[in-house]
């Protein structure tokens, strides 16, 4: 029964915080907190590709954009109507909107995952840096397409997305991504990914289907980037293509590298630090980005392996399961 303990505690804690936090925190801090949650999802999902598998994707913003616009379009064309119908049928709004948000997130994630498969399959069959170039191109293509399609608002952006995402949903998704990544890291499949990262030729010679594993990790990473995009859309209720530039991808890469390639704890920690840092530096006005860049450089010089290296905080510490399983 111990297996269900940690998820149950997480769920209760999330619901309690969801009710209480907006009362204590002012809206600005609260929004930063939401962005922390979304960035944790982005960083951990990119870590599956760049950290676990050792492939270099620099198009995470593109998958996020696909998920954001995909889920937003679903909600605005169908989701809102279905939710309204459900409320008319005397379902509580929380349930109706929650169900439709979940559907839109799965669709947005699914769309991003399909793009991930199409982009990943040809480029991951090869060894080397092809993925970097292809994902770089993909990210730009997605952004330019959005910019030029009037149906999704083009350069004006897409307003009027219902604000259905809240603290609960954002951190529920973050918790799920972390949980899945931890399970993956302690599994045969995770070991296969690490083996590919360390020596692809040896992994292949030991019977690891390297292409299939790389594509799987990439599709999984893309899916959660899409889900994070969906949450982003349904929290801010406005999307603009300028959010999903190459710089956003770099920001997420910085989180993964700074946290330590392959360390889940590191990604979480770095996502928190790198989201809070630019906000904390608002006090110094013009020098904000200069200081931000400087701090990144200092951190990378003093800890080139990242905050956590490849290590993790001991999950046993929190009463979670360790590898090998508990009886």
């Amino acid at each position, binding site marked *: 029964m111990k297996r269900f303990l940690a998820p149950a505690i997480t769920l209760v804690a999330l619901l309690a915080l969801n009710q209480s936090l907006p009362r204590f925190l002012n809206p600005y801090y609260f929004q930063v907190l939401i962005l922390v949650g979304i960035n944790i999802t982005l960083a951990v999902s990119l870590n599956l590709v760049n950290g676990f598998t050792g492939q270099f994707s620099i198009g995470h913003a593109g998958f996020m954009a696909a998920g954001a616009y995909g889920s937003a379009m679903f909600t605005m064309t169908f989701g809102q109507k279905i939710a309204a119908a459900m409320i008319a049928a005397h379902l509580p709004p929380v349930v109706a909107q929650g169900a439709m948000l979940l559907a839109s997130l799965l669709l947005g994630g699914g769309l991003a995952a399909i793009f991930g498969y199409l982009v990943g399959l040809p480029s991951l069959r090869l060894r080397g840096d092809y993925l970097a170039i292809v994902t770089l191109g993909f990210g730009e293509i997605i952004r330019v397409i959005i910019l030029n399609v009037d149906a999704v608002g083009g350069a004006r952006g897409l307003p009027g997305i219902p604000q259905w995402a809240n603290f609960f949903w954002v951190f529920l998704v973050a918790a799920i991504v972390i949980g899945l990544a931890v399970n993956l890291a302690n599994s045969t499949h995770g070991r296969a990914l690490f083996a590919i990262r360390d020596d692809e030729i040896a992994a292949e*010679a030991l019977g690891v289907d390297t292409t299939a594993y790389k594509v799987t990790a990439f599709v999984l990473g893309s899916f959660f980037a899409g889900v994070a995009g969906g949450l982003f859309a349904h929290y801010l209720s406005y999307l603009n293509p300028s959010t999903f530039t190459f710089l956003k991808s770099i920001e997420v890469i910085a989180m993964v590298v700074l946290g330590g390639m392959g360390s889940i704890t590191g990604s979480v920690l770095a996502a928190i630090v790198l989201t809070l840092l630019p906000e904390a530096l608002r006090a110094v006005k013009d020098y904000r980005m200069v200081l931000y860049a400087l701090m990144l450089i200092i951190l990378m010089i003093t800890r080139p392996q990242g905050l956590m290296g490849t290590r993790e905080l001991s999950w046993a510490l929190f009463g979670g399961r360790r590898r090998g399983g508990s009886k």
Partner: protein
Amino acid sequence: MSAPLLHLEKVTMQFGGLKAVCDFELAIRPGELVGLIGPNGAGKTTVFNVITGVYTPTRGRVMLDGAQVSGLKANRIACRGVTRTFQNIRLFPRLTCLDNVAVAAHQHRKAGLASALFGTNAFQRDEALLRAQSLEMLQVLGLGDYADAMATELAYGQQRRLEIARALAGRPKLLLLDEPAAGLNPQESEELMRLITEIRRRFSLTILLIEHDMKVVMGICERIAVLDYGLMIAEGSPSEIRSNPKVIEAYLGEDTAHA
């Protein structure tokens, strides 16, 4: 005479204008321990790469248990029961010794990706079994105490043994050893010879081995094939090879052979 486990049929491997291996014929029966020797650059490792699917031969076929494997991807061939070690050690440096071995056992897992992601009971059982088997394999190779050490923390000779443990964890029918004695001192080579004999008996393996250390090759191989410039110049028992003039010529040069 039983049917060959591995049969290379007129295998040619050409890189541009260079024929690295030319019309190479070799049949290995189940249970045999065959040595592949030859001067540097003779094409020995290319033969390994062709057998394991790193390269697809330009001409000819590789048959395993009567079925063609040349043209399959390397991981498929590994799953059919051919694993190898590498001339320049290729361990996974950022994994523990146990995990290094467990990677190879990966093809024998039953639980799928979904059950791993959600950590189901079936997955937990599978994982525990896999770890137990991997640990056992480390113990067989005398590395039981190093299960949680990082692969790079091992001494050179131990790393060579870890590579063998890893290859064995794939439960191969045919084990390919690429210069297992390279860089070992005489005492370690002695140990290695004992070890190869031991694992061969224990896991009823067929072994093909590339080696420069003639003491090792002559000591444990039942049959030896000699490659020179991609051509097989001799094949036979160790004593036949030792007295074969072509082999002496390939190794020592023409003048010496005729002197």
